[in-house]
């Protein structure tokens, strides 16, 4: 069972990674990179590494996303425009 779950989530991770690279919208790319981390943490559980899974869930998808968003907000403030997410 766990092999199938890993396979499905692995394929989803690859799709999300390609999407994160090619998306025109930076906010969407950040969301996709958060999804990669969330899926990775499930795979870590199935690979018998719960400590790593917990760290990845907490840091990879929570704080990293927030740090990206804060940086993006600063850049938008400097740019002075209202469009927050267009790929420049």
């Amino acid at each position, binding site marked *: 069972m766990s*092999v199938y779950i*890993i*396979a499905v989530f*692995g394929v989803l*991770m*690859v799709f999300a*990674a*390609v999407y*994160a*690279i090619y998306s025109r919208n*930076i906010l969407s*790319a*950040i969301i996709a*990179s958060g999804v*990669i*981390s969330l899926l*990775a943490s499930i*795979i*870590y559980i199935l*690979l*018998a*590494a*719960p*400590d*790593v899974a917990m*760290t*990845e869930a907490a*840091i*990879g998808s929570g*704080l*990293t996303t927030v*740090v*990206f968003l*804060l*940086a*993006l907000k*600063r*850049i938008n403030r*400097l*740019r002075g425009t209202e469009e927050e997410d267009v*790929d*420049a």
Partner: protein
Amino acid sequence: MTLGTVIGFALILIGVWGMLTRSNLIKIIIGFSIIDTGIHLVIVSIGYLPGRTAPIIDGAVDKARAGLEVVDPIPSALVLTAIVIGLAITALMLTYAVGMFREKKSLNIGDYKELKW
């Protein structure tokens, strides 16, 4: 050849491709974090032994047979610290990106020509 390593390598290659071809600074940093995740996945899945369980001894694992029932704890420990450092590095890189944007009002890597020769 295990599934985890294959996925990890695929992520590393996608991340490298993204870092090399994208020109937006934030996209490059996202590519970096994808590489990061891929490397962690590879290391953890190298430490995994099929059919064994997590290296935490409680009711489900017999202490005397621990050497035969648990997976390798060392890769977990390494990856755990690497993830925390990855966050700090990402924050630092983003801070630099903000600083670079302040200088040139652009996130496009092509606009930074000072180091080209």
